[in-house]
């Protein structure tokens, strides 16, 4: 039976901010809408992850009654599947990296070699949303349960100093006002920059910084 995910639930709006399982020529495959520029998007697919397809479709079939559709992989490598009932379910833990081919170039959640914080983020925009709090003193996400929303702060887990250190490092390219950032399954942070309209910027890797503990779900 599909299990509701107890952690940070993504609610990304953009089509390019999520992976999808779609029906391809030879069966279901993984699709990424890759934003080449503000005016151009490419549909990239890979059929190299049948196990992942199976995990996602198992949930989609159970809840939506049809296969296919959006999913996310978070920093714990947990596969999260939003469904038509507006809930988000846990599909399992998937440890292989999704890579796509775009005109001979590899598009992957891992930052390319040499990419520096502050550079334009060339990877997929799929990630889980967090917020650098105003003043860059903490990082938080909203946990929604029923009609209730709770802000969960990194400082509550590891103390204000640890939280502020990481927030400040990331805010160098985001601005002191804070705002939303995304973390992907390869532990890379990216997000909209302080100047609206500019492309997403790479903010650095989570690296050896402490982070929110993994939510308690059965990953067997």
């Amino acid at each position: 039976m599909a299990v509701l995910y107890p952690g940070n639930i993504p609610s990304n709006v953009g089509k390019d901010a999520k992976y999808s399982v779609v029906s391809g020529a030879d069966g279901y495959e993984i699709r990424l809408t890759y934003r080449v520029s503000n005016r151009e998007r490419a549909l990239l697919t890979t059929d190299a992850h049948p196990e992942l397809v199976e995990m996602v479709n198992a949930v989609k079939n159970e809840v939506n009654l049809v296969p296919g559709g959006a999913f996310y992989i978070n920093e714990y490598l947990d596969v999260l599947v939003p469904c038509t009932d507006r809930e988000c379910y846990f599909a399992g833990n998937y440890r292989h990296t999704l890579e796509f081919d775009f005109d001979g170039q590899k598009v992957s959640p891992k930052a390319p070699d040499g990419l520096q914080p502050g550079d334009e983020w060339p990877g997929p925009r799929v990630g889980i949303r967090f917020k650098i709090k105003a003043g860059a003193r903490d990082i938080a996400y909203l946990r929604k349960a029923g009609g209730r929303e709770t802000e969960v702060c990194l400082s509550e887990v590891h103390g204000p100093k640890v939280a502020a250190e990481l927030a400040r490092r990331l805010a160098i390219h985001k601005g002191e006002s804070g705002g939303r950032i995304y973390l992907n399954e390869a532990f890379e942070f990216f997000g909209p920059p302080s100047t609206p309209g500019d492309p997403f910027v790479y903010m650095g890797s989570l690296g050896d910084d402490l982070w929110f503990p993994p939510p308690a779900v059965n990953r067997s």
Partner: protein
Amino acid sequence: MSEPSTVWSALLVDGIAPPSTGLVADELQDGSGWTVFVHEDFFHWLHDDHQDVALRKRARYCLTELLSTGTCARRKHVRGAAEGWVRTQLGGTGGSHYYLWWAYSGYPAVEGSDLPDKSVLVRIVRHHDDTDQPLNPGSMGDWDILTPRDIATADDSELTEQQQQIVALDAKPVRIVKGFPGSGKTTSLHKAASSIWGDKALYLTFSSALASDAASYFAAFAAAGTTVDSMTFGDLMVALGDDGSGVKEPIPMAQLIQRFEERTRAFRPQLGKWQRRSDELYAELHAYAFGMAVPLEFRSVPASKKRHIGRDAYVELRKSALSKKVAGHAVEAAKYLEDRGLVDELFPSVSAARRLLDNSVVDLPDEFVGYSAVMIDEVQDLTVVEAMFVMSVVGRIGRQSGQMPHLFVAGDESQTVRPAAFSWGWLGDVLTAMLGAVARERDEITLTANMRSPQSVAKLIEATRSHYKMLDREERPGDFASVEADQEREGKVLYCHAPMGDSWDRVVELFGGQLSAQLVVPGMTVPAELVDPRAQVATADQVKGLGYDLVGVVDAGERQVELLELAERVKEEDDRMSGSLGRLKADQFRVAVSRSQENLVLLDRGPTDLSDAIRDLVAHVDPDLVVRVDVDELAAHLEEEAAAVDLVEGHLSEAKSGLSMDPVFALGKARSAVDLLPKAHREGSVPQPLVEDVFRVAGVAARQAASVSRHLGDAREAEARQAEAEKYFEDGGFGDHYRTLSELNKAVESNAGSADPRVILSAAGSYDGISVHLPQLATEVFNSLGDWLGEVSKVGYSTDYELLASIAASSLAAEVFEERQAGTARLHEQALRRTAELAVDRNDFEGALTCLESIEDADVDLVAQCYEGAGLWVEAVGHFEVNGRPLDALRCAREAADFTKALELAHIVAPEQVGRIRWSQRLVEMVAPELTDRGAPLSLAERRELLKVLDQGLLRATGSVPGEDDPVDTMWDESTVIVPAESDFSEPLDNFAPPVFAGIKSVKDFSDEPVTAAVDELPKVDVDIPAADTRGSEEVDPVTPIVDGFISLTALGAEVGQGHEDLVALCTKLGIALLPGNATVTDAQADRIRGRVARENRG
């Protein structure tokens, strides 16, 4: 049969369950956004039982303010060696002797101390004179974070007995809280929100400044898990669908009266005694003629169909207070206004309340369902019609939620600066009429302590009771009780005669140099000769709910004489109108004097010294209470002129308080702050956050004042104020944010849907920045973006702009706002859908597809139609197939000349087409290279002949129609076909499997290999997970480091010198999820672990 009533009645809540008993909250919200750090020095002082109890109580009050708003009142900047700190007076024996020292982040005192942004450090409590030693802020290690819970527990025990009654968890469902100015009514309601009454509570009040203060308080101190919504009565009306002008943003009373005078000029000769008393007539009509006109019989006044009470009923109602003749003139004026459609404009709130009350049986919006407590503050400012409307809301909340909410109602009969003719008597009847049996179960609690005023001022307030004794009994507020003043605090009550001219100018100058000082006229309007930007004189209405260290009551003696004369007329001439007027003037006097938190100066600026009249007023309370001084002596009594930076902060604070209620008044205060900045800079350093705040608030005030000017039809003044706002924002460094907002407003102003998406994108992207730097305007951005999203969700994106730009704008707006307003993402999707539908209507299939591709669960059928319309046949086939429309898929497959797919589909749904398609496919096969590239070549003649034959054959086949008994399929004789042995088309033609349109394929179906094959191919290693007691690398058996392609945790432990358990714990801290067995991690996870271990080893 009569029509069902559209007006709410108590019958509708008959049988609704009473509210449940409240619960003690274990946790409080702690969500104001401000972090308060306390230094260990202060912490020890606060918990030292040897320290003065009153000082510690006052310190806790300051901490409450800091936790909710990040600041506290009565603050001064320290000068000299300890410059950069702010100190707030705590009190002490014999005067203001002890101060709380604190600083905001960004202030010079805490520079370099790592105090995070939006934080406050509370450092120490020091003696008044102790300012010449520098004070080190310390560092993180010396500070603790203060939470609301830390002080809430201590605060509870400091509530008075009466306040504890108000917040008791098991009291009656309705609690009526009565109290004098400063008696702690609002504080009691705030405290009530720290208990759990349910999931949601609603706080309502008249003043938006108080609503905003309450919202800040609740963000920190409301029970965790309880949402407390704070709104004004105007907000409530707007939320229920009334957007009449002057409802959401109230127009100051003085301006309404000014407009009333203009509109009734022609009628004035027919007004009898009211002819020269426009403000009193306005008050009469507001409180009675319109304010008591309700659509049901109430207190013997029949139901009013019109907005005003009918003539006979009105005269009957008011004859004892005004006389028949005067009441008749008043009701004629009401009729005059209603006949000319002027009621909405001149009495906006009362009109809106009546409109809503007329339709009060309609259900409230969903967000109102589930409120388990409703707190109504400043109830005395409500007229009957407004109170009925509000109570109908309470009743509807109960009915729709299935359980009545707890109801807290607080007010003071003698503070009705807004003409409402309020009395506790009629409020009780309103409660019964609207809530029935529930309202009869009520506690009435009177608060008698004065928390705000020192003893001397409290005595004067007590003395003003004599005003009411002079009045007719009907005009006298009831429930008078003695006031217990704050014995700890000292204050002065002075009388000063300062005739207009040099003396008055000197008073203005003296007040201008004092911190937290305000001149107040106890009337409804400020006389023209007192309108002076230096003096900033306010009416009692404008300062209601605010407190100042020094208050100057202008024309105090004159007002006292006036009240005596009115009383005389009531007594000698039976002039009842004077009694009614006297009540209003007495209330205004009382409100004006009760604004003082420390010193009070009663001023007269006419030719006569009226100190005797004031002495008479206080004689029965304390004959020596008032000290008469001349202007020079007044200067000696007041504190020495405050530092300019403190005056800047004082003006700023007052401007902030006035913003929502009276922007013009706020602008005056803000201008004073701006003008004082150069002087403050000359005197010493001025913290940059303060400078920015001054320009920010000045800009907001100027902008709102411009809006008032526009409302009053003064375009020139509006333009000047707008330009002033722009300058302030520019000077404060907020120019970019403000321009973004202005462009957004301009773009959505006329037709939200046609706004340029680039502007929307920019505004959505700037929202976080605007929220931080111009928080007062963030709601405007939010609303404008919401308007645009709402509009495009109905009419689609404008075709004047690039579609992708619109989608990007809509997507970002939805993304930014989704977390603040759930459901915004749906608007984005609706906009995409609507745009797609409209694009299909005009055959713009590419445009439609652009939209549909961005929708997660787009209608597959529509998508397929669009692909077909755009000529993208292959994609169309796929989508029609998925949607179970094989015939459409077949049509598209044939358009795509995909014979294989067409044949597959035709076999299932169109067997009559199979033959032709197979024939076509065979033709293709016949010209496959395997058959054409070998053997003897064709002659040119043969080629020509074949072309001719094929052309004619294809022409015939294109135009042929199969007869019912002549299926084309039979034309083909399969036995005659030569199929190349190694052709790509060698699959047996009759071996088509029907496609699967429904049901779910297993992964296995999509691959020649079983899914597990890839995994199976990985080298298998049996891993022996070490036992839990494994410690250190030397105890670990050598294991293969790679397991199923991942890193063995045991091997990694050996590599980094960590035991298995420690490594598992480290993974949790790093946010690495381990699978059952905790055996392996990925390469990237291993790198993080290595990095962390190395970092910790480095110390």
